[in-house]
Each structure stands twice: as C-alpha cells, then as structure tokens.
C-alpha cells in the first residue's frame, strides 16, 4: 500500500485509524531489539489520532493518518531531540521544524524520533549515544547512517515515510543498506529550519520510503519556500508531477567506469545490472570521465568538518544540554562539558575542522577545499550539458557487521565517494534498490532544481524493475 491508498482507506473508514495505530504500536514493541526509536510516546500518538478523528469527514489532508518517523535532529516540540547524543540526551525543543509543521498541517501522524549517528556524524549508527540500530533485513548488519533509524523504521514497516537529513549520503546510504528508496532534493527545496546543522552548506532534508510515488507526495507537502530559512527555494510550493508517459527513449544517461574506484564486487555487479536494464529500456548510455570525483571524500572531509567545528560550538552547556559538574573557571566549564558530552567521532571532526580553519597555516586546506568544490561543481555542470541524468552506485560497499570496523574509524569514510559530490554541488539525487534483500543500490543524480527529471526516471525504472 502506498500513501494515497492508505490515506483513502482512513478517509473512507475502510481502515479504522485507532485500531491501525494500536496494531502499529504493538509491532513497534515487538521490534524493540532493532533499537530504532529514541523517543516514542503512545499518548502523543493517540492525541494526534483524536484530532484526526474529529476532522475525519471534513477536510482530510494529503497525508491523513500516514505514519511518519523523524530523524532525531528534526525539531518536534512534543518529543525530545537528542541528536543521538549525550550532549542533548534530555533536550526538549520549544518549536517545530518547518517540515514538521507542514506534515502536521496535512494530517500526518508523527510516531516518534528515531536513532541516528551522533549529531549526524557517522555512517553506521554506531556513533549513537543510544547504541547502534540494527538492520531489519539482517540484524547482524549495520543499517547505515547517519539516518539509520529513519531507514530502519521504513524497512521494518513501522513507518510509511521517514524524514532524515543528508549531508554526504546520510539518507541514501542507509536507504541502500536497508533496501529502500532514499531521496535528497536539490539544496534549498526543503526548508532546514528546525533541523540541527551538522555541515550547513551540505545538509538537506531527505525522504526515505518504499516507493517513488510516496517520495513525490511527501516532497510536495514539505517542500517550498520558508521565510525561516534564507537558503530555501524561492518557489512558494513544490508541485512535482509524475508523468505516466515518461520513458528512457531519447534520454542520455551518464555512467562512470568503476575500475578506477575501490568498490565491492557485489555492488559493481548490481550497478552493471541496473545499467543494462536502463539500456534495454531505451536510454542512450554515455560513459563520463570525472577528473575530480576521486577527491570527493577528501574535499568533503575538509568542508564538512570545518562547518561541524562551528556548528557544534553552541553546545557549551550554558543555556541547554548537558553541563559538567566539575568546573572552576569558564574555560573548565566548556572543556569538561564538551569532553563529557560529545562522542569520539564528533570530537574527531571538531578537531579536524578547527585545524582546517586555523589562521596559522592561512586556512590553506579550507580554501583549497572550497576551490576543488567549485571545480567539481563545474565538472558536473559540464557533464549535464551532455546527459540528462548521471547514474552511479549509491555506496562502494554492502553493509558490514555491527562492531566490525570500530577499530578503524577512517575506513568508513570512503563509502561516500559517489554520494558526497551530490551534496558538495547542491545537486539532487535518489537512491533506488537494484534487487530485493541486501544488495547494491544505484543513484540517479540530477541537475540542481531538476528533481522532477530524476523522480520520473526513478518511477519509470521502479515500475520496469518490479
């Protein structure tokens, strides 16, 4: 069932809201060992249901009764917002993120806040202060990250859609590992107001779901201009249309030669499978040569950690969040609070960022990073003169076992080779599973603001693939 069908069943009374949610809550209880939820409040859910019941026969919203989970860095003022951290373990936000207001406006049901890597830093959910989430397909495996709980909640059928945030693949990589769909719109399409910044020029709200159509429906609800976010699109509202006549004839799809990259065999195979499929559907395949793609994780590292170092500065223990017991001077207060409140990965990135921004070496790496970012963006623009869509694997590997790589934190960085550039260049992207089960996924990358193109392509591919 997709959003439209479920909504209509609620509206017509074919499915009873209350009993649906009673069952859903039971299901959530039985899957507790997956460690998906950080905050979950039955009373709040039933309060929302009551409100929906009152308006059942009048104006039902587009998402009437649809269960949604939120990554725990998105503000919802009825639940805590921990960002998967000890720093904000007990933090209760006092306002809703714009996306949450828009979801509620269209009668979605917010069922809870889900697990994530601490402050969205990590790609396995293992940096979460609340412990790792397990992959619903195989609970020995990581679900990916940082939007781990988001992906797992959809894959485990506990939510129809989930909002995550994506700064370098944090929506698409877990979507891939959990074998679902993950979409990241062009920068600014969805307001970031109320979403805790990790690396603010890269961060975007993404949508995880079981099908393309639900992603489009949700984007049309939560997208559009927001006066609270100066980077948000100037378009008043988003109204993406799915065209039933879309096909790959006359389309040019750019692909890349994977031989230059370190990449797992299974992922490579699945990529080839997808390319063949698309070719057989009539697309013209164009092999593209990327000069700067191999630097993407390095550039990402510099840009991301520099931004992290300033975005994390507000967590000083003075106005909210965790505060150390032990301090005599103000400096002690900062140092001890931040030493106790932040996890290892967060500290590592703050330290790197601080180094990159230090005046001592004239911010050489920071400036160089910005330059290569621009070159990369120009390279993509040039390629988009020739092709409509660029197709890459979503990740370079399949999910590994929980705990198997904690000794080597830097090894996990490289999985983002293909999804990081999309953020660096403000492009749009959707990750689509190639096969059922643990398998590789592919991502359709589109030009900035040409989201409709990739969504239609994804929809067409989805239908042809099933």
């Amino acid at each position, binding site marked *: 069932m997709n959003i439209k069908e479920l909504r209509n069943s609620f509206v017509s009374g074919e499915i009873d809201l209350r009993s649906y949610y009673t069952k859903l809550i039971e299901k959530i209880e039985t899957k507790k060992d997956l460690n998906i939820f950080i905050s979950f409040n039955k009373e709040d859910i039933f309060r929302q249901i009551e409100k929906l019941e009152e308006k059942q026969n009048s104006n039902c919203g587009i998402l009437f009764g649809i269960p949604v989970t939120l990554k725990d*860095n*998105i*503000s919802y003022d009825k639940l805590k*917002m921990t*960002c998967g951290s000890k720093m*904000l373990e007990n*933090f209760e*936000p*006092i*306002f809703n*993120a714009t996306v949450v207001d828009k979801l509620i406006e269209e009668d979605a049901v917010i069922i809870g806040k889900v697990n994530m890597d601490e402050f969205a830093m990590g790609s396995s959910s293992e940096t979460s202060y609340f412990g790792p989430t397990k992959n619903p397909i195989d609970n020995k495996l990581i679900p990916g990250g940082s939007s781990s709980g988001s992906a797992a909640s959809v894959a485990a059928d506990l939510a129809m859609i989930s909002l995550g945030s994506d700064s370098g693949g944090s929506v698409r990589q877990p979507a891939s590992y959990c074998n679902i769909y993950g979409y990241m719109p062009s920068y600014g399409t969805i307001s*970031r*107001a*109320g*979403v*805790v*910044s990790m690396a*603010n*020029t890269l961060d975007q709200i993404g949508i995880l779901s079981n099908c393309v159509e639900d992603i489009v429906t949700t984007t049309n609800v939560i997208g559009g201009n927001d*006066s*609270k*976010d*100066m*980077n948000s699109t100037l378009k008043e509202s988003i109204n993406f249309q799915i065209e039933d006549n879309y096909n790959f004839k006359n389309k040019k799809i750019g692909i890349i030669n994977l031989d230059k990259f370190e990449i797992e065999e299974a992922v490579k195979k699945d990529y080839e499978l997808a390319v063949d499929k698309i070719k057989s559907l009539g697309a013209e395949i164009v092999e593209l040569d990327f000069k700067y793609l191999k630097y993407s994780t390095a550039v990402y590292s510099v840009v991301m950690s*520099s*931004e992290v*170092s*300033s975005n*994390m*500065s*507000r*967590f*000083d223990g*003075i*106005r*909210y969040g965790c505060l150390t017991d032990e301090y005599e001077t*103000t*400096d002690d207060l*900062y140092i001890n609070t931040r030493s106790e409140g932040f996890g290892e990965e967060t500290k590592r990135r703050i330290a790197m960022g*601080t180094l990159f*921004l*230090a*005046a*001592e070496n004239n*911010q050489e790496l*920071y400036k160089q990073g910005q330059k290569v970012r621009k070159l990369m963006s120009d390279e993509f623009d040039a390629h988009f003169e020739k092709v409509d869509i660029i197709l890459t694997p979503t990740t370079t590997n399949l999910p590994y076992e929980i705990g198997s790589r904690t000794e080597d934190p830097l090894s996990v960085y490289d999985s983002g080779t293909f999804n990081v550039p999309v953020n660096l260049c403000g492009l749009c992207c959707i990750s689509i599973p190639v096969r059922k089960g643990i398998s590789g996924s592919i991502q359709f990358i589109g030009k900035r603001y040409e989201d409709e193109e990739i969504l239609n392509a994804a929809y067409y591919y989805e239908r042809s693939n099933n």
Partner: protein
Amino acid sequence: MNYKTLIGLEIHVELSTNSKMFCGCKNEFGSAPNTNVCPICLGHPGALPVMNKKALEYAIMAGLSFNCNIRNSFKMDRKKYFYPDLTKGYQITQQDMPLCENGYIEVHTKDGIKKIGLIRIHIEEDTGKSIHNEEGNTLLDYNRAGVPLIEIVSEPEMSNADEAKEFLENLKETLKFIGISDVKMEQGSLRCDVNINVIDEDSNFKTRITEVKNLNSFKAVYKAINYEEKRHLEMLENKDEGFKETRRWDDASNSTVVMRRKEEGSDYRFSVEGDIPVTIVEDEFIEEIKNNLPELPSQLMKRFIKEYNISEYDADILSRNKYLSKYFEIVTKEVKDPQLVSNWLLSDVLRRVNEAEIEFEEIKMESKNFAKLLNLIKNKDINNNTGKKVLRKLFEDNFDPEEYVKEKGLIQVNDDSVLEKIVDEVLANNQESINDYKNGKDRALGFLVGQCMKASKGKGNPQKFNEMILKKLVR
C-alpha cells in the same frame, strides 16, 4: 625629536531597528533581562538566522553618509570564540567583504579641514551581556544578543585627542541625523576602542600599538588618548617599543590598565556563514536610500549660510544637531529674522539646555511659542530684558507668551508723552549724573537710562529713553 602620534578608532554602533539582526525579537534597551529572546538569538539547535533588511538599509545609510563605496554583493562570516555572552559559539559578522569601504569623515584642525579615512563599515550582531555580581556569580542577559551593529574602522590618521574628539562628535551627530542609532554611549549603543602608537619620524622607530577598549564616554576617550600618548612618548624616548596590548581606561586612577598582552593575535577561525546566502545589493536600492537620506550637517551648514546669510560660526553650531537645525528653520519661518533667531537660540536657549543637562530635543518650549516671543521682541512689544525674563519662564513651562505679557502687563511703553514725563522726572532728581555726563563720563548715560527703566517698572522703551535723554543733555 620629531614624532607623530597615530590614532585610529574602532566604533561599534547599535542600530535602532525595531527588531534584532536575525530574528524578530524586540530591539529595546532596558527591558527585564532575557525577555527579548527567542530560539534564534539564543542559538537553539535548529534555529536559523534571517537577515533584517532594515539593518542592511541602515548600514548602507551610514556608509553613504560617510562617503563610502557600497558593495554590490556581500556574504556574512562566522567569527568563532567561546564566551558565555555568545550564544552560538560564533558571532555573525563580515570579515573580508565589508558592506562599506573607503569613506572619510572631515575634522577641523588649526591647519584647516582634514579628512580622516574610514577603512570599512561592516555589519554584525551584538552579543549578550555578562553581569558579575557581588557574590562572585556571573549572570547572563541575552536581550542584547543579536542586536544589529555596525563597526566603523578608521585609518590611524588622527594625530591628537582633539581630532579624535571631533571625529567622534561628527560621527555621532551624523548617525543621529540620519536616525539609525540613538548613539547613547552610556547605554552602550555607541562604543569606542582606540588604537594608538607613536613614531619617531627621524629614525622611523615606533612603539607597538595599544588598544584601549570599551571607552564609554567622549571624556574617557579624550583622557585615555592623552594618557597613552604620553606613555608612548616616554617609551619612544627610551627606545622601548613596548607590547602589543589591550588596555582599559580606569576612571578611579585616571590611567589605563593592562587587560591582556597579545604577542600572537587570537585566532577566530573565520569561515563563511552558509546559513545566509550571498546577498546582492542592487544599485537601485542604494540609489533609493541615497535619495531618502536627510541633509547632513555639512550640507546643512552650507545651505544655512547661503539661505539665511548667517555667520559660518552660527551655521556650524546650528547644523550640528538635527533637532536644533529643524527648530531654527521653523522659528525663522515665523519670525523672518534669521540672525535674531540664531542669536537667541545659540546664546540664551542653548545655555538653558546645558544648564538643565538635557538634549536639545527634550526641551519643553514649543517652536511656535518661541517664535511668538521673538516676534514680540522684534516688534518692540517688549524690550530685550523683558524678553529674557519671559524666555526663562517659557523654557520651563511652555505657554503662549503673547497672552502672558498681556496678563502680566509687560507690554513695552512706546508712548512718547508718557516716556518724556519719566525722563524729566529722572533728570530732575539726578543732577550729579548730568554733571558727570557733561564732564565726559559716558557711563552716566547708562545710569540715567537705567533709572528711567526702573521708574517705568521695566516697561519703557530703553531705546527711546536713550534718545530723549541725549537730546536733553546736549554736551
């Protein structure tokens, strides 16, 4: 030794917009602590800044008034440091692309007019305020956090405290004129840091720059400069370059005190503020602001001289204060005697303003009543002395002077027959003074007029008394 003092000023000015720089919170001085705050100015996770267009407009107004170039596109930057005042761990400011650049402010020196260069004017947000109480606790008030500021940085081109004082006065009056700040130093809406060092022009040996921070009155700026100039000269004589250091002015000891020495400058780890996109400032927008700028003091002064034919000295003082200049023009329209209006405003009225320790705009005396008073004097309905007495009362209580002088019977007596009678009587009773006058003592004439005034209870026309006495006492 041939030396030169180099003084540069850095001035922070709070803009008097209704709301803060990046949120809708009230920008208001004196509210109860932490009442004008919201998630944005408190730096709550997820809160994003949204630029206040009015603040941008105000900053451009300042730039235009000080002859700066206005940038057509700018970005904002983050300046990072940890301080409890600072809610986000960084201050949003402009580092390498200031909104306004390369301006100047004119000051009068004994060698004529000198242009003091302005390096830049940039926009930024203010921080909160720490209050250290007697128990040793620090209390934090974030009402000021996020209030829009402009920072004005001058070239080190002032060479003494007088120039610095005039620079500041000019700057303050201009800002007040264009109405973008209330420039109250005591409330912190205008704050001044002084950078100073001296250089031996023969040997090029110079002392290291001292920064005197957070000066909260013009007097303190003046004293601190003089103190530092002397201190630096002593160092210069000893060939001691001193330290690059930050000091503060201590009123109690009448001296500056070291706050910190910075051998290596603090690293603010500047980075781009990505939450605020690059902003384009259209030429039309700048042009529109330019067209709406009020007349500035220097322009006013020139116009006053030309239009009202008053002295440069008078025009200068009248044009320095927005309210005074307006008052002058309104009253002049009624009285049609600019020199008379100027004389009365600059002497009697300003003296009373100073005595009352108020700003000119706070006076109670309405312009229409002041104009009526001056017209009474001009038309000889009352004499000067009566005028001064009435003014004293008018300044306090603001009433209709026409009714007042009628009620109190202060109308000047101009009737020759009445006056002549008084003159005859006075002359009859003061033979001695008549003799004195005839013997060449001119002062005696004044005495006789005074006696006549006294006899008329102050209401006689002194001019006429004078003439009549002279006629009767031909030497």
